[in-house]
């Protein structure tokens, strides 16, 4: 009996470990393309202006933290680790919340797996930005620190609802609802009144915020950065090809395309370049394969991967346009560090060094692109050094020899 109890006590730890491993493996080996996809749509800057811009709108703190995490996804192992950590934290906090309403914790411990599974699911939906899981995680953290006394809990909830709405967005709605846990020990009418009152307070906060921020009321109810319009998001196949092209996995792309051919113009362009790179086709066939993509700006991953290929075949300005359009297409009006990286390259190749320097200045305020930006600064400030850089110098020669035409 004693041994069984000991095993039962170990159960949550075991569950946590299994959850962490499962989540990590999923992101590391099954869905890393989603990590890269999210990373493409942020330009997290370590500047006061960036922080104050985020804090100026409801939900902005959650968005700030979310983007701070997403910038790390450039390294998929760190990205997978972040998601695993978030899942385990959600489970631990859920266990604490459960313990306040259920006495038989061991019997119902499986319930604590539900919130992290929901969180896991949410993170796999491309149209739901990182703001949402961060807001949910922080909201349940606030729920966990609420006092066990109904009166104190009520007063703290009244304070936390408007401030929480401003910092985290509508996910804070869970906080008033959590007050329902007192139903079994206090007067029901009183508890329901408190819950309805705090929900009204939340509604008032939402309406009041619509007078001070430039967003329509429907977006404030839904959450400013809680949902992205799906039009330019692309499909999973595009995200996979985009990730592979970004990581220069040309052999993998060639194999994938040979096994599952696609008529998507962007995928075709990437695949043809991969086949050319692997020596399977001639340049003429590559150029024919690129033609359908010339007027194809259907999705952000498509534009990003086309930009990658165009750069490599010497269509510098077309690469530049696709990188810029991909950045402007980001649904929450974010900018993109990845696009700026490409724009540094294209402006360096076309000799627009001051524009390149501007983007370098910006990337130097990021965490993940800073060292690359520093290296590029040395090239841009001393253009004669480009001659020693095989990749950029060759592309500069190609660009300078290209006759002008319109696309």
């Amino acid at each position: 009996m004693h041994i069984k109890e000991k095993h039962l006590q170990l159960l949550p730890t075991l569950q946590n470990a299994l959850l962490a491993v499962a989540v990590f493996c999923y992101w590391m080996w099954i869905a890393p393309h989603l990590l890269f996809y999210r990373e493409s749509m942020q330009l997290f800057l370590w500047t006061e202006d960036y922080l104050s811009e985020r804090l100026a709108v409801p939900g902005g703190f959650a968005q700030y933290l979310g983007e701070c995490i997403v910038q790390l996804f450039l390294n998929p192992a760190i990205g997978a680790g972040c998601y695993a950590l978030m899942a385990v934290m959600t489970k631990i906090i859920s266990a604490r919340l459960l313990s306040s309403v259920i006495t038989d914790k061991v019997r119902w411990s499986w319930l604590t797996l539900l919130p992290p599974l929901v969180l896991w699911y949410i993170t796999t939906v491309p149209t739901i930005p990182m703001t949402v899981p961060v807001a949910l995680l922080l909201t349940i953290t606030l729920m966990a620190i609420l006092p066990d006394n109904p009166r104190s809990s009520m007063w703290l909830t009244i304070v936390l609802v408007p401030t929480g709405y401003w910092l985290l967005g509508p996910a804070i709605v869970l906080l008033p609802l959590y007050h329902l846990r007192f139903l079994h020990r206090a007067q029901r009418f009183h508890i329901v009144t408190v819950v309805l009152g705090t929900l009204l307070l939340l509604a008032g906060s939402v309406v009041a915020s619509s007078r001070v921020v430039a967003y329509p009321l429907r977006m404030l109810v839904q959450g400013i950065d809680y949902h992205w319009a799906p039009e330019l998001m692309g499909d999973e196949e595009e995200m996979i090809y985009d990730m592979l092209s970004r990581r220069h996995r040309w052999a993998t792309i060639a194999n994938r395309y040979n096994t599952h051919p696609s008529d998507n113009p962007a995928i075709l362009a990437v695949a043809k370049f991969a086949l050319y790179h692997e020596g399977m086709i001639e340049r003429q066939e590559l150029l024919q394969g690129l033609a359908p993509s010339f007027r194809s700006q259907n999705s952000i991953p498509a534009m990003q991967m086309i930009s990658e290929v165009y750069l490599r075949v010497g269509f510098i300005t077309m690469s530049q346009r696709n990188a810029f359009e991909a950045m402007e297409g980001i649904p929450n009006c974010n900018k993109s560090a990845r696009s700026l990286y490409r724009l540094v390259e294209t402006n360096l190749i076309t000799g627009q060094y001051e524009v390149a320097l501007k983007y370098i200045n910006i990337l130097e305020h990021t965490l993940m692109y800073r060292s690359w930006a520093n290296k590029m600064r040395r090239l841009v400030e001393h253009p004669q050094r480009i001659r020693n850089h095989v990749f950029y110098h060759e592309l500069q020669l190609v660009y300078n020899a290209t006759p002008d035409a319109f696309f």
Partner: protein
Amino acid sequence: MNKYLLSAFLLLVLACSSTPHDVQESNRLPKIYPDYIDVTIPVGIAPLNFAIADPQVTTVDVVVRGAHGGKLHANGKDADFNIKEWHQLLTQNKGADLYVEVCAERDGRWTRYRDFRIHVSNQPLDEWGLTYRLIPPSYAMYSKMGIYQRDLSNFEETPLIVNTAIPNQCVNCHTPNQTNPDQYVFHVRGEHGATVIRRNGKIELLKAKNELLGGSMVYPYWHPKGRFCAFSTNKTLQMFHAAAKSKRIEVYDSESDIFVYDTQRHSILRDTLLMRKEWAENTPVFSPDGKWLYFITARRQNYPADYNKERYSLCRVAFDSMSGRFGTQVDTLINARTMGKSVTWPRPSYDGRYLLYTQIDYGYFSVWHPESDLWILNLKTMQTYPLTAANSKRTESLHAWTKNSKWFLFTSRRDDGLYTRIYLSSIDRQGRATKPFMLPQRHPKEYYRLLLYSYNTPDFTLRPVDSDAFKLQHDIESEHRISTQINQ
């Protein structure tokens, strides 16, 4: 213990602020950003804060002395002047020079540069501030953009309408009537498209398109009396250069005409002289007395093949604001054929002396033309010449006058070749521009270098625009629109 703590605190403070010592003299002028050396500025302008262009400089120590007295001091990463003291100094030195002494610390060594001057003009700047659009220099897609107003006496910028409030819409061409913030027009493009007109304290939303007109209302300009507003209607297309050095985009119109909108009758006044089939009329503007309508026109070309043969002349036609009728004769003021150049964005000064315009090699959409320069036409002598002091090797474009016509602003890409910034300059008695200065910012180097937006269609505003963004957003999202009628 407290003594030690105090000493440590003082050491920390001293370590954080550096003052010039063992200064080495240099006879060179400092390289500052923005370049405010020898510029002419009006009383009332925000402090010309600046930084040393050299990124290795860690501290700058600046003393500004007025020829008529007064002194300012700034020390830190930037020269960040106290706003109140700056205004006192400018008021005290109206019509005189300021002498700026710059010391910069690099690698722990201080250098004192040759002093430079800033001239404080006698000419007042009567306007409260500016309005402008901020938009990325995009190809076809756009994300966040907005129309903002900016107090010229400090650094405060406030939004008038930002398209996050009306998602996926484009807002553009905000144009007041001779800097009057009570009367303006701007367009909304997209699902909730409209032409927004504010007049007599009321906002009206016109239907974005009139089918009989064949397109939207585009480039606006108010008649000084406020009843009429001239517009162009354009079918605009874009092409992208594959390998043109320093050119990215060509914008041209396959068709364009001009007309005048009567805000009282919601009617459109057209004339066959202004909508000729083989010609592209564009960018209409009224003379300050309202008796003339200036516009540009070019013979239509075979697009896109002959896009670079399209050259616009500057013309004018009489306009009678009592009857709403146009004259019967079009005068050509600047002939593109004889100049071999193209004229665009004519803007008459409100005192009737000059007409400021942009000259480019071809076409009219000058923002993508690096050869684009500001030119001026003396309307009394009909002499035309470039505003050399205001121009650079890069694009100058989109200009506007103050109500007293002593100052003007324009946008330029001289800063980095792509992102347009606002510059202000004045016209001297000989009709020459003074050296322009970049729109001041609190930390200009950091601000402009991180800003991923271009300034677009700027204008002066006499007072702050009294705008209820919340109501405007609701009006735009509503279905209610006023139809326009066409009068032949």
